[in-house]
């Protein structure tokens, strides 16, 4: 067994991304869908940090992208939860199958 390289870290982040995608496909509840999206964003962050550390150690651009993604994810989660609470108030449910007013 040799040293851990970039490839192994990319395998982990790929698996995490597709786990998040599976959750996004199967779940019908808005909060759990949001949780799957958080998993996908985190896998992208792992990629940015790993590429920065192993390929371009003299720069810090990957770290800054990770920081900005974390910030935007926080803003996105806050707005999404405000929308979810508003939807719950008007529909008494946060299931995506129950909010079909704008479907067709």
């Amino acid at each position, binding site marked *: 067994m040799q040293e851990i390289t*970039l490839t192994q870290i990319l*395998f*982990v982040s790929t698996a995490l991304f597709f786990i998040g995608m599976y959750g996004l496909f199967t779940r019908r509840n808005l*909060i*759990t869908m949001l949780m799957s999206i958080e998993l996908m964003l985190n896998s992208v962050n792992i990629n940015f940090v790993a590429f920065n550390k192993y390929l371009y150690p003299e720069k810090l651009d990957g770290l800054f992208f990770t920081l900005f993604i974390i*910030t935007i994810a926080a803003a996105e989660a806050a707005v999404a939860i405000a929308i979810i609470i*508003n939807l719950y108030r008007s529909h008494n449910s946060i299931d995506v199958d129950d909010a079909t007013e704008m479907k067709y």
Partner: protein
Amino acid sequence: MNISAIIFYAISALILGAGILAVTSVKIFRSAIWLLFSLVGIAALYFWMQVEFIAAIQIVVYVGGIVVLIIFSIFLTQHSGKEMPKPTKSKMIFSALASLSGTAFTYNLISHYDGFTFNSSKPFNTSMNEIGTQMLSTTNYGYILPFELVSMLLLAAMVGCIVIAMRPSSNQIASATIMLTESEILNKKD
């Protein structure tokens, strides 16, 4: 097999196992707790890669902020002990097939690509000093403009959240119902 590799595999197993349980658990509260473990595992992976600042941010923002927000919204909108309806068999099968084929495709691409040019000669300096200086520098490749833009975005998101989640006052509800009844009357006249 050295100790660093063993730690890496342990952290990866934690991340992926907790992630799978987070997307498949039928109780929504347990799913949130598994998500918490997965995010802690990702912070541990950042510590393993020796980017302590990102690891600290990950714990503060994700574990301390977003997961707590999600748990609060579960308490506000769900009966947390209730089991969620399971997805239908065919949907589960097709989602698993799509995810697995995507994973296999990407694994194939990554494992056959050998164009990564490692230049580990230079040190990877992630001290707070370096991060702060480069992020707030106004020279070429400085990150001051996105930094300011992101702060504006956070302000806008905060105001937007308050406006969206605010309960409309009884005054507004009354005027809305009056407008609705007026339009109904107009419709009937037509």
